[in-house]
């Protein structure tokens, strides 16, 4: 047929040509489709979007479903990574140079002080975000089956976060850094038998000196980073595999609810169901629930969740930038082992333990206390086998958790704000002995 020429578009844009080229297709494996399939395919075929499931429960779109604490922690980590790399350009982990580098950073490096401020406040915020993330997960009972092990990984990530913060504390090599780390590392020697050896191993000698600075530096920038990425990969991978607890349809089928199911059980012989779907088959799951997924209550992660995450990420960036502009990170005099400041306080997240030392034997306060606490957190999902996530079914767990949490918080507040020279009681409005 002569007249049935191909109705080719008049002029194919260069963009379209690029998109149709073999090279482009080998890189980007999905066509730019404006259809549900296009969106699903894009999330499915893009490694960056692949961190997300294609669809997420609609309930997750509410900010208060998770308070985005895990995501905020991740964003803070990214900020710390970027600012940390910048700081590494100007920092030498040597006792003779470290403090001078800090001063150079302050006075001569472009945005040096701002970057250092952002790194400092971001680190404190990340400790807070991680702790609140843990609290949120506990409150929602999201550590229960099948997510028990991911909770353990999460506790590991929290320990890594504290480790980051603690090792980073020493690096400015000023009085604050020196004595806070001295107090913190002194706790280690109370471990029965191996305490002294452990402290030596950590510090590379009996006292905090060049060896300790280098070790802390290497642990801070390399060892913990490797550990963090490994644990984070597992944490996210399991999150993707197990699905989110928020909006989990299992909740609707909670066994403890014992709701009388009016409908007969579904069998392969049940062909059509009320919602227009038919039964393709019935799958036996031997252990664990498998995945219950009801897409009727789900939305596409891209763009719905992604947009929300972008907003949160921008807000976090704005917050740390504002803090960095408004508040200077402290830098005291050069570290002096011969001049002990009064009081010498541990970093604020360990100051609760320091306060405990004032009341109990060091073995109990410095070793058993934190040891049991971490062990209890790790063991929590295996001790608490109550499958229900509803608060009214978990009174005991809640009472225990909140008692410990509030106790630790009170000790931290007293240690940080109400203690002065000689660890004596001082009202913070009279004199505040606290530097973050």
């Amino acid at each position, binding site marked *: 047929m002569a007249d049935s020429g191909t109705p080719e578009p008049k002029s194919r844009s260069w963009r379209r040509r690029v998109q149709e080229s073999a090279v482009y297709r080998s890189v980007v494996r999905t066509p730019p*489709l404006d*259809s549900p399939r296009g969106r699903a395919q894009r999330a499915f075929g893009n490694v960056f979007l692949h961190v997300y499931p294609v*669809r997420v429960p609609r309930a997750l779109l509410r900010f208060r479903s998770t308070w985005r604490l895990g995501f905020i922690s991740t964003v803070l980590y990214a900020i710390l990574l970027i600012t940390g790399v910048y700081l590494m350009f100007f920092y030498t982990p040597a006792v003779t140079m470290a403090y001078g580098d800090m001063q150079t950073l302050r006075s001569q490096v472009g945005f040096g002080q701002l970057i250092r401020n952002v790194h400092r406040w971001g680190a404190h915020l990340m400790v807070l975000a991680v702790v609140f993330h843990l609290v949120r997960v506990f409150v929602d009972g999201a550590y229960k089956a099948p997510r028990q092990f991911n909770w353990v990984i999460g506790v590991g990530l929290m320990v890594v976060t504290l480790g980051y913060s603690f090792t980073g504390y020493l690096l400015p090599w000023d009085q604050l850094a020196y004595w806070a780390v001295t107090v913190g590392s002194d706790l280690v020697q109370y471990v029965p038998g191996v305490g002294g050896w452990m402290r030596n191993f950590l510090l590379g000698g009996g006292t905090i000196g060049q060896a300790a600075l280098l070790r802390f530096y290497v642990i801070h920038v390399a060892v913990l980073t490797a550990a963090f990425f490994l644990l984070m990969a597992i944490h996210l991978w399991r999150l993707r595999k197990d699905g989110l607890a928020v909006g989990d349809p299992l909740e609707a089928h909670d*066994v403890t609810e014992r709701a009388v199911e009016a409908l007969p059980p579904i069998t392969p012989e049940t062909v059509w169901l009320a919602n227009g779907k038919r*039964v393709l088959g*019935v*799958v036996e799951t031997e252990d664990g629930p498998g*995945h219950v*997924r009801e897409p009727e209550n789900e939305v596409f992660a891209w763009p719905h969740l992604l947009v929300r995450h972008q907003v949160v990420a921008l807000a976090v960036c704005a917050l740390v930038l504002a803090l960095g502009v408004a508040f200077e990170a402290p830098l005291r005099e050069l570290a002096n082992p011969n001049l002990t400041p009064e009081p010498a306080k541990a970093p604020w997240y360990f100051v609760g333990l320091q306060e405990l030392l004032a009341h109990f034997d060091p073995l109990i306060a410095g070793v058993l206390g934190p040891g049991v606490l971490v062990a209890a957190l790790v063991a929590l999902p295996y001790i608490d086998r109550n499958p229900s996530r509803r608060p009214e079914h978990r009174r005991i767990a809640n009472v225990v958790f909140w008692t410990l949490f509030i106790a630790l918080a009170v000790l931290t507040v007293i240690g940080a704000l109400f203690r002065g020279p000689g660890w004596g009681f001082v009202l913070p409005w009279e004199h505040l002995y606290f530097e973050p």
Partner: protein
Amino acid sequence: MIDHAAESGGDFGGTVQGTPAPCRGGCPVGTDAAAYVALLAEGRVADAYDVARQHNPFASVCGRVCSAPCERACRRGVVDSPISIRALKRVLCDAHGAEQGDASRWMRAVGSIPPASGSSIGVIGSGPAGLAAAHDLRLAGHAVTVYESMDAAGGMMRYGIPAFRLVRDVLDAEIAAIASMGVDVQLRCAIGRDVSFAQLLERHAAVLLTVGCQQGRQLRAPGAELPGVMRAVDFLRKENVRFDEAAGEATIGDGAVVIIGGGSVAFDAARSAWRTQSMSAYDARTALDAARSARRASGNSVTLVAPEATSKLSVPPEELHEATTEGVSVRGGFGVVRILGDACVTGVEVAPVLSLFDADGRFNPQLDLDTRTVLACNTVVLAIGQQSDTDFLADTPSISRTPWGGVVVDKALRTTDPRVWAAGDVASGPRDLIDAIAAGQRAAASMIASLSGEGTVRPRPAPAVHTAPPMPRGTRFWSGYDDIRRVELPVLQPERRDAVAEVEHALHNAEGQIEAARCLRCDEHMQFSPRRCIACALCVDVCPQSSLSLIPTTGGVLAGGTLALLFDDDTCIRCGLCVHRCPTDALHFTLSPAQSRPVLPERGAIAAWSAPLTPNIDG
């Protein structure tokens, strides 16, 4: 690689086996639209034509005027709008149909014509039902004589459907092709006038009545008998004859015309009336702007009054659009109170419709008589339904008739006389063209079975039929099939329309191919192996249409248990993402096997299903 085909018996299951694609299920003659659309998408136009032709001797006619129940059933309509299946069929027919002048090409899909060694069968009426039956009867080896009272064969296809909708060359070609099979068509032979029904029964072993519904219904309102009131079927018949022969007096003169009715006949009548008034009788081909201006000056107008609201008319939206484009004003939601006039019609009094159906669900419009309006006019055309004229059966008491003139038939379309069958509108009441073709085929199958005395249908010669190509899997991810909008059918510019120029144009081959690529491939059925499934729900996650769910079979599943994978055939777009993602190969699609027509009794194997299955994932 997993041989899914070998496993489909045991490991895989859960399909509604053998269910045809909705388009095929929607087609009264069971045309495998899914297959020919898929073939066209691959550019296999000739093969696609064979599939379209196989179940329908009037493929080319249907490509232009079918009511396309396939499109109403098309699942693509759930996503955006259905595939233009009818227009695609026209693409195939324009390339290979009978109108191309090669009757043997037309025959290819149904095989060779056997010698007329069987019984002699008489068919009364050469409409779609009669000719479709003649086609099938002749293929089964019977001698067939068709009796037609008019000057040409085709029935309502010729005397009901206007030429601007169905080009006569196409109709003539397909009728000629049927005649070339050895079907004897006796024109100008009216039963009861030229030959009696009793004589027919002597001549033939069996007789098939397919006389249709040729009589317009009368309006039950005052003034319906006035001069100037005519019925749409009569009006269309006269106009179609006049335009076909390019001779004769115009049926309606200048002035305002009111068409009463909201169906396709009403629209045909309205658009024909517009053409009659716009063009001089002997110069049907010169209708240009001049004619339009003249028409406005002379006070001509065509108004269509329908009881249904304009948005709820049964005709497709394109039809309404074209009619209004041409200048027909459509007033939906009005019923006729009475027709005004003394010696002849001067107007129609109408009132808004309050409700269309009564408490029993019957069509019985209630009018709001307080707000009546008068539409001044000098011609009224009634298109409010048709009925059959079977007075020639008055002397044949063995055949029971219905009060509306139709013939009583049983399930096998046999009348109360064991040697007489009836099909089409005369048996079913007014229906669509494709229903008439299907009825003719059913009657033919029933007659063949009865005449052979076997109770089964003699198998046809194995036709050259093609199955749909399997869904292209990997490449489907790159194709934008779900993102293509429905093609808009090209139409003749309104100012260039005349009495017989075809309004709707054909798609180009390439356009047709793009439109065909929109097909979701509902002939591909989801297969699932519960044994392989590990309940990871990744398929549910990736499904862009929310077509899958994984739910517990009972209330509690925390301690292990069973889960049911649910699937919604209606929303699935067969993108194959679930198949691609499944880590254990528990899901895949298989083509539904090619089958005989669902409407017929067993018709013999049409073709062995041998479509090769390509496994979804390599390795």
